């Protein structure tokens, strides 16, 4: 293990990676739409060996009292123990909570869903959008895989029929969610002072710091999240902004 870690770091110090990728190169990405028919929308993202499924279930509920005319978005992530020997059963750990909240902020801050259009009756009744992220295999960079799966699933949603207060889940209509944007995350790790995109599991184990830059369609940044136990310099962060701006155009194409 320690030898493996040292090897990753040695290569990183020269700007190299154990799977021969470039510093700004992602692993192969595959997006499967609607693998779960029971969900109102779903997507399975395979990013190298990492596999994530996001499923959307719609519900009906009361709006928050400070947003009486808006639908409710809820993002939940579970690190299912099937996906890694290190995941445990129980309430979401720190990493799962951070993952869900980073994905949530990307969707929310880019106004990817026009939540006002999900109001059915002000103060009383709005659509609830439940985004559930399920990790099937953890081989690194869960944030990017989960964010892409979630946004892809949201764009696939077909609303079920609404009868009074009850949802008839067996009847899907042709109506979609009021989607307006495709926020895309780009995650970097810093190793030996160099930045690398789309970290694999072995890289995450030795990384010094992590930065996720989420941008919306016009290139504006809508969310940032630094992780890891070491700092960044201001230069490194500004450099990441520039690299993310480029890469995001490439990744966004996969979502079309």
């Amino acid at each position, binding site marked *: 293990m320690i030898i493996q870690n040292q090897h990753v770091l040695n290569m990183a110090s020269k700007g190299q990676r154990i799977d021969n990728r470039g510093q700004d190169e992602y692993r192969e990405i595959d997006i499967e739409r609607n*693998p*779960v*028919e*029971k*969900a109102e929308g*779903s997507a399975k993202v395979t990013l190298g*060996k990492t*596999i994530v*499924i996001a*499923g*959307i*279930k719609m*519900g009906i509920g009361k709006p928050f009292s400070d947003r009486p005319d808006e639908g409710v978005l809820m993002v*939940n992530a*579970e690190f*299912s*123990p*099937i*996906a*890694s*020997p290190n995941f445990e*059963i129980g*309430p979401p750990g720190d990493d799962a909570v951070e993952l869900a909240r980073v994905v949530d902020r990307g969707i929310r801050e880019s106004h990817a869903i026009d939540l006002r259009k999900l109001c059915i009756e002000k103060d009383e009744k709005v659509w609830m959008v*439940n985004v*559930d992220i*399920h990790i*099937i*295999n*953890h*081989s690194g960079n869960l944030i990017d895989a989960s964010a892409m799966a979630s946004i892809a699933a949201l764009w696939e949603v077909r609303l079920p029929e609404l009868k009074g207060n009850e949802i008839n*889940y*067996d009847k899907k209509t042709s109506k979609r969610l009021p989607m307006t944007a495709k926020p895309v995350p780009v995650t970097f790790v810093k190793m030996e002072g160099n930045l690398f995109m789309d970290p694999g599991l072995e890289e995450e184990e030795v990384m010094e710091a992590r930065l996720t830059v989420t941008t919306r369609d016009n290139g504006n940044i809508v969310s940032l999240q630094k992780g890891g136990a070491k700092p960044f310099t201001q230069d490194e962060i500004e450099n990441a902004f520039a690299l993310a701006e480029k890469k995001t155009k490439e990744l966004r194409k996969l979502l079309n």
Partner: protein
Amino acid sequence: MKRKDKRKPGDLRSVEIKAGVIEQADGSAMVKMGRTIAVAAVYGPREMHPRRMRKSERAFLKTTYRMAPFSTTDRCRPGRSRRSQEISMVTREALEPAIFLEEFPKTGIYLFIEIIQADAGTRTAGINAASVALADAGIPMRDLVASVAAGKIGKDYFLDLEYKEEEETAADVPVAYMPRTKEITLLQMDGDLSVKDMKGVLQTAIKGCEIMYEKQKQALRERWGPNAADVKKELKTKTAKPPSGTLRGTPSGAQASTKTEKKR
């Protein structure tokens, strides 16, 4: 009597089984039975936690059955329910008889089953996936465990009920079975049947298990057999696990029966 999806009473739904679907796991499998999708992963044998669950004379098969929140018609909340707790337990008991647990005293074998889509028969799909995953992990087994439910609609015994049939059947009888030793490792029933019908439904389910068994073996051959394309690909990128344990589980393996005799 015809079935809504035009199957004959003794037909399974379309079945798809794939071994080795989760890279991180020591063994894994995905099973589709109609629209129901189950994924199983095995980690271990490894140190058993918590310590007080350690068994001095055998491995403990820690089994967890769960449903993804989006797997059901109404979103099902994450976390343990009484239903999932019971299914975890009967699943463990359905599989234990098949495993040479006594070969790994004090350890834990961790089995996780996730239902990705639920459309009737999730516990049977889970057991089928788990059984293949255990073999994929190289855990030595007496036999594979195959599982199918049966019921009775009108006068007919129907195999492998789908969701809409579950509402019409006079009973729902999930069964797990080890075809080589002809032993029943899971039997539950809800409904209302005369003893005669109950026997008929049980017999029907057992026949279904025998069909399922062949499909499980086929999936393991595809993964580990001499022509397995995947294995070759795998071998290049990671140290392949010796599939010896798996072989013991197949009825063709002489090693399996020897083992059984010695151990019993």
